[in-house]
């Protein structure tokens, strides 16, 4: 296969993968939603869960996007320095979104700012968003695909706290967002908390936190402790599905952290809705692929 053929092949596969992510939730999310619904005893909440499961069943059978807001596509790429299409990858991902938008179909979600028009292609200036990491001595590429819908993007917030406010300030920042914006963002949510030195490091961490599986724990003992405390705490608020009350509020809380300046604590919150459409696909140098998030699925 020459480079042109390789590029076409990968674009085709990624387009199908994006489509898959639109109509099938990842295994960890499906499992958690089932668990939460079984623990629920609120009447309205039970009706909502029933609708959710019927919807996912229909979406999979009809191969249609389970939620009409198929989001702005975001890709988190960890690319080996020797992956043959490293230089072409940005274009491949962009093209694959365009192709998938026509074929699935996905909603047109790219509005050019200031000129204020919808491109009608679901791609635009800076969309899809692609975040890069390069891996030494590797010829593979790992790609997290995420559909960032409007509803769950809206609660996103970042700030820089003073060290005097401590992690207590982080807790307050997260909890306040849950009862103001979180309840409208389609709970049960996956809550991503980023801690770092500044707004953009914290913000990126908070989104990376949403790529981590539901039920996973931060390797740092204190961070893991805070994940558990926040998860139990937000659950005790009892937002329930759609914020209409219930016995739980979240699928989980994931914290991703990096170091900080002695004078600052950067903190950010990102939320994933119950329809948390994320997928992870890994390609080797010959474009053989493995999908970790959706067991037993082929493209």
């Amino acid at each position: 296969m020459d480079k042109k053929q390789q590029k076409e092949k990968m674009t085709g596969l990624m387009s199908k993968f994006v489509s898959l992510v639109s109509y099938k939730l990842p295994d960890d999310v499906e499992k958690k939603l089932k668990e939460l619904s079984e623990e629920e005893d609120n009447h309205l909440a039970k009706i909502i869960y029933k609708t959710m499961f019927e919807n996912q069943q229909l979406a999979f059978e009809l191969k249609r996007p389970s939620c009409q807001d198929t989001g702005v596509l975001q890709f988190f790429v960890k690319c080996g320095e020797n992956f043959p299409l490293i230089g072409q990858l940005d274009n491949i991902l962009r093209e694959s979104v365009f192709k998938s938008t026509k074929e699935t179909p996905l909603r047109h979600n790219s509005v050019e700012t200031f000129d204020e028009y919808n491109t009608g292609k679901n791609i635009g200036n800076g969309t899809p968003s692609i975040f890069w990491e390069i891996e030494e001595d590797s010829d593979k590429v790992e790609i997290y695909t995420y559909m960032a819908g409007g509803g769950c993007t809206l609660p996103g917030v970042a700030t820089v706290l003073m060290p005097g406010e401590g992690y207590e300030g982080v807790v307050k920042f997260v909890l306040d967002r849950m009862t103001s914006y979180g309840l409208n963002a389609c709970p049960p949510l996956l809550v991503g908390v980023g801690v770092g030195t500044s707004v953009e490091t914290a913000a990126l961490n908070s989104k990376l936190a949403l790529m981590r599986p539901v039920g996973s724990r931060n390797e740092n003992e204190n961070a893991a402790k805070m994940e558990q405390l926040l998860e139990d705490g937000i659950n005790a608020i009892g937002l329930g599905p759609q914020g209409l009350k219930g016995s739980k509020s979240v699928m989980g809380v994931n914290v991703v952290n990096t170091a900080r300046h002695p004078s600052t604590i950067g903190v950010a919150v990102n939320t994933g809705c119950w329809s948390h459409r994320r997928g992870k696909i890994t390609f080797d140098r010959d474009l053989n692929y493995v999908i970790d998030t959706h067991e037993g699925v082929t493209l």
Partner: protein
Amino acid sequence: MSKKVLTTPIKDEDLKDIRIGDIIYLTGTLVTCRDVAHRRLIEEKIPLPIDLKGKAIFHAGPIVRDLGNEQYEIVSIGPTTSMRMEKFEKEFIEETGVKLIVGKGGMGKNTEEGCKTHKALHLVFPAGNAVYGATKVEEIKEVHWKDLGMPESLWVCEVKEFGPLIVSIDTEGNNIFEENKIEFNKRKEEQYEYISQQVRFIK
């Protein structure tokens, strides 16, 4: 319990016994109407190209398949965050005579007033269930303001027993989300007191 179905055109009397937390279903005309459509009518003073009196609007931006010859098919349709339309909704109800506003999450004081004065309801369709929603749409009768793009166009849908729709604001201006929020905030304060004592990692 029998299924409560409202059929358009809806009159004030049809809504008077319905209270927050009730579940209803809709048969008739449901028109998608969201951010820019609200802004056009209220702020830009551009008249809506359709009569909404006695009908229902949906804060939604669907995925639609263009079948050619002005024929369209709904692929996925579900609600978007209603709160974004709060700024406009009271006047919108007043100007159009719309009876049902379907969306996601709560709305605020303005909409409460609009619903109370002009006898309308705000309802929640469980969001994210867009294929389920699409199966309740029988046909797209018309489309207007296509210049706004697929999500923002006014898609005039004929629906049958569209729901479940959970009443979030009723014709007396009661608001289920505002009532819940009082309880949520109280519990949040308790949780903050408890958790903050255990995360004093800076010593």
